[in-house]
Each structure stands twice: as structure tokens, then as C-alpha cells.
């Protein structure tokens, strides 16, 4: 195939390059992917490039954006806002990713066993799941965190418990649907053991919907993480965290609104971008689109 010159077709952009490799992508989907990847890079590598200690207090409190030495200004204790913002990405994104990972692992295990076994095992597992789902998630997380004490690990536990049931329900429904398909029957008739049928035969066929659910859950978990830190049950000061930063900046909402706007916008961007990446994945895995 002749390589088309950028001049006689669509201008060669990052998006058209992405489209060439991964298939057509909408502007919104493309932007969402870029934002999510950017935030992940920021969380992993950002702190390495910021020399300023996010905890170091300076006499210059509440400096505005563009101050010398503090491009995004300082907070009420004179701490560099840029450094705090970059360091604040790790706890929020880390908690969101970790709790989603655990929720996916636990939920998928429960869902596969329930969907594969059927009968009373299915009933027992799914009714237990319903019990957890019946609790409002935020209330459940607050309850768990207040029992175990605030901090990143109780928070991960809480969000995991709150998010696992939706994975279990999804996987159970998908698995039950796959059970009716002949390839599962033929695996059974080949003498394959149940765990192998679940993990090697069925699970790969659930990848699409599972990935969509993972992205959605990351965004919800990020929201919970920020929310819990905001109400003081998540990341504890002085550790920088977007949710906690919004709370701390509340009293300066009129004098220095950027202290709220910056971390809040970051949280919002990440959450929304994750959702749109989920939508893009949904479109990609929707087989009906290709027919």
C-alpha cells in the first residue's frame, strides 16, 4: 500500500497516527485517552521532575499564579502549589487503580464461580453480592474506614468492597451467557476441569465488557478517593492529595480560587476522561458495530 503523503490527505496528526494503529477514534475518545495517559505518566514520573518539596513551607503564603519560583503560586502555608498538585496525583490515581484491581479480581472470581456453577452456589454468592450492593457505596466506604481508621489502605479496602459486587454481577451475567455456548460444552466434553474452563475458555471471552467496567470503576473509585480525602477520611495532611487540597483551600475560595480550581479540575478531568475511555472501549468491543 502506498504511504499517503500528509499533503494530499488528512494532515498527519497524532490522532491520525493513533487511528492508523488502533482504528478510528472520535475526537472525544482520542482526547480522553491522551488525558488518561498523561495523568498516569504524571502520577508515575511527575514527582521525579519536580525538585520542590511539596511539604516545604516558605514565608510567601498565598502567592498568586506566575510568582517567581512558584509557577502556580503557593498555598496558605507557603507550600509550592505545582509541586503539591504533581505529588497529589499519586495517592488519588494509585488508590483508584489499586481498589479497581482488587475489586475486579474479587468480583470476577465470584462472578465466574456463580455463573459457572449455577444452582444454590449461584444464589448464595449473588444474594450476598446484592446485600453489599444494597448499601449506598459512600456510606459503606465511610463505615469501613471509620472502623479501621483513616488512611490509604483502609480506603482501598473500603472502595474494593463497595466496587467488587458490580464486577461480580456483570461477570456472572456474562459467564452465564457464555455457558450456553457450544465451546464451553465442547470443553466440558473434552474432559477439561472446571477452573480451567472458567479461566482459559470463558474469561478471555469476557475481556471487552470487563475492560469497560474497569475504566468506569476507576473513575468512580477516583471520585470516592477524592471525596473521602475531602471529608478527612482518606489521605491525611500534610501529604498532598487533590481531595484534601480542595478541602484545605475552601477558606480562600474568594482570595485565591486557583487553590480549589486546580486540584478540583484535575480530579474532574481524570474522572471524566476515564469514563470517556470506557465509552471508547465499549464502542470498540461492540461486535454489533462491525456487522
Amino acid at each position, binding site marked *: 500500500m502506498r504511504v499517503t503523503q500528509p499533503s494530499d490527505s488528512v494532515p498527519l496528526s497524532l490522532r491520525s497516527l493513533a487511528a492508523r494503529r488502533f482504528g478510528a477514534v472520535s475526537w472525544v475518545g482520542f482526547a480522553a485517552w491522551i488525558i488518561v495517559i498523561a495523568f498516569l505518566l504524571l502520577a508515575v514520573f511527575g514527582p521525579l521532575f519536580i525538585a520542590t518539596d511539596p511539604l516545604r513551607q516558605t514565608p510567601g503564603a498565598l502567592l498568586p499564579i506566575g510568582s517567581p519560583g512558584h509557577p502556580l503560586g503557593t498555598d496558605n502555608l507557603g507550600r509550592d502549589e505545582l509541586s503539591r498538585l504533581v505529588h497529589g496525583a499519586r495517592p488519588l490515581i494509585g488508590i483508584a487503580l489499586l481498589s479497581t484491581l482488587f475489586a475486579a479480581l474479587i468480583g470476577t472470581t465470584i462472578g465466574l464461580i456463580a455463573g459457572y456453577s449455577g*444452582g444454590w452456589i449461584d444464589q448464595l454468592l449473588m444474594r450476598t453480592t446484592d446485600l453489599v450492593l444494597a448499601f449506598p457505596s459512600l456510606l459503606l466506604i465511610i463505615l469501613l474506614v471509620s472502623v479501621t481508621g483513616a488512611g490509604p489502605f483502609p480506603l482501598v479496602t473500603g472502595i474494593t468492597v463497595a466496587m467488587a459486587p458490580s464486577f461480580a454481577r456483570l461477570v456472572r451475567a456474562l459467564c452465564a451467557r457464555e455457558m450456553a*455456548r*457450544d*465451546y464451553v*460444552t*465442547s*470443553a*466440558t*466434553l*473434552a*474432559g*477439561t*476441569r472446571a477452573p480451567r474452563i472458567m479461566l482459559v*475458555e470463558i474469561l*478471555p*471471552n469476557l475481556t471487552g465488557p470487563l475492560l469497560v467496567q474497569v475504566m468506569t470503576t476507576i473513575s468512580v473509585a477516583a471520585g470516592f478517593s477524592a471525596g473521602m480525602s475531602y471529608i478527612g477520611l482518606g489521605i491525611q495532611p500534610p501529604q498532598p492529595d487533590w481531595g484534601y487540597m480542595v478541602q484545605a483551600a475552601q477558606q480562600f475560595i474568594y482570595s485565591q480560587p486557583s487553590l480549589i480550581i486546580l486540584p478540583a479540575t484535575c480530579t474532574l478531568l481524570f474522572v471524566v476522561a476515564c469514563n470517556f475511555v470506557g465509552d471508547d472501549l465499549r464502542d470498540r468491543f461492540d461486535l454489533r458495530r462491525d456487522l
Partner: protein
Amino acid sequence: MATSPEQSSSGADGSSAAREPILSVRDLRVGFRTRSGVVPAVDGVDLDLYAGEVLAIVGESGSGKSAMSMSLVGLNRGPRTMISGTAHFRGIELISASERQLRSVRGKHIAVVFQDALAALNPLHRIGKQVAEMITLHQKVSGRRAKDMAVQMLGDVGISNPRHNAEAYPHQFSGGMRQRAMTAIALANDPTVLIADEPTTALDVTIQAQILDLLKSLQRELGTAVVIVTHDLGVVADIADRVAVMYSGRIVEIGTTEQVLYAPKHPYTRGLLASTPGVTGPIPASLPTIPGSPPMGAERPDGCSFAPRCAFVLRECATTPILASHDPSDSGHQDACWLGELTIPVPDESRSTL
């Protein structure tokens, strides 16, 4: 009652005389629980399968042919099915066997080929991997060795360039190639019995013939006994040594292919054959049909279930006839009809025009 080894003396399966059946089914009953009561799908089937023979089970939809063959591999077990009877195979009673026992039989000694190969192959695994998987499940061989055996097997079932095609996914194969691949998976461990549930129904006619030829040649080569479930009498004539005709959950006639297709005894078999167009002779304006339709589920009548549609109903038909041989000369040929039992001469005319 059932065919005993010494009875089989004629037909393609003459060598099975004095041989023990490898699979012996007695009084198999399968019922499905529904809201409106238990629907009997299989109603007391006795059947023997001999090593290396091809036994066709024919019957229309709902006659219980699939339910019967699938219960032999423990497939339709569950709270909604009631299965009774026995099926002895290699010292195991399949009907009451534990899942563990069944797992040691499935794929290794009894393999199954399905109608829809696309659905029966995992869409996300490469063909070669699926064949190799079947091998590693039952044989202690290395992954590399299993892969080589899989490629060999794919070549044996007539897939060209097997090493290359082993890397393909099921959707990249044509219908015929998929059926060949599934046959390769089924025969990977050289099973004693192959159950083929309508293996050619989803294929077009030329591919059907190819797959049947393949089954036939592999069956001869490996000495596999094949139970082929079909409603296609052409398939039966082409491949089967013996035929069992099922109607409404019971075997109504069984014998060698020649006996059943050329000298049918049961009125249902005769009707079935009469409604098949011939290759030679004038094309009829319309084919003869059997009036009525098979009894559905629970509304099966007492006695002979074909009686409501039968042209030769007798008073005796209110009692269920047993499957037995009625002619001392060809004793392997059995049917379940009172006509034979009572030795009432049936006019030759009605035999041919029914």
C-alpha cells in the same frame, strides 16, 4: 430385546458377531422437568454399540436422538433432568458415573463432534492450540510435542498447510475447515467412541460429502466406533453400518442399513422412506407425507406412540409394543410394531404406497 452379538450376522458389521458390545445402553430414560410436568424425551432405550461400527440414529426433531446421545456423556445432567437406566462402557456405568469418572472418559475414550463448529470452537484460541489442548488434557506429553501432534492431526483431517493454519483463529476458517478442525480435536486422543451430533447439517452439500468421506476414512483407519445422530437419510445410506430409527423417545426399528433402508418393517420407517425423493424415476408432483405430527412432550398416548398417525392401527396398539425381531431369517433386524408380532400379512400394495 436388544441386539445380541450373535444375532448380527449380515451387513457391513458381520465381524461384530460373537463380540461384546463396547457400549451397552439399557432402559435409558431421560425426562425434562417443566412447569407443566415431566416431559419424557427418551423413553426406555436399549442399544448396543460394537467396536468399529458406524451406528446412525435417525429421527425427526424432538424424537429424543440428541437427548439420548448427550446423556451418555453426562451432558444434560441437572436439577431439571431425570435420567435413569444404565450405559456400560469400559467398566464404567456412564449414567451414574461421578463427574470425575466422566472427565476421564470424555475426550479420551468418548469424543463428540457438534453441528455448529463455529460455536463449538473457542473464538479466542488458535486452532492448533485447541487441538493441542485436547491432547495435553489426556496424554502426558510436552507442549511442543502436543503442538506437533496437533499439526499432524490437522493434516490428517485434510487441512492444507497445517503448520501455518494451526496458527489461525476459528473465524478465519471456512465452514468445512472448521468442521475438519473439530473432527481433529475429537479424534486427537484416538477415542473408542465418537458421537457426531448432526455433523453435516450446517454445511452445504458438497462439503457434507467431503466431511462424511473424512469421517468414514478416519473411522476405518482408527477403528473408532461412531454414533452419528442425524435426520438425513442420505447421510445414513452413505456412512452407517447399522441404523436405529427413533420416534417419540423410543427406538422403533433397528437393523443394518440395508435391512432398515431397503426392507423397512415399522410403519413409521416406511412412511419416512416413502417421503424421501428418489434420485431416479419421475419427479413426483408432491411427496407422500405421514399425516399428523409427532406427539409433543407430555401428550404422548399410551401404547404405541405412532398409533394416532399409523395407517395400520390394531386393537393391540393400545399396548406398547416391544422392540423385537419378528423374522427368524434376519434376526439382527428388530422393530417395535404389533404387525410383526401378530404375523398379520400386510398387503404388499400398502407396503409400497404408504
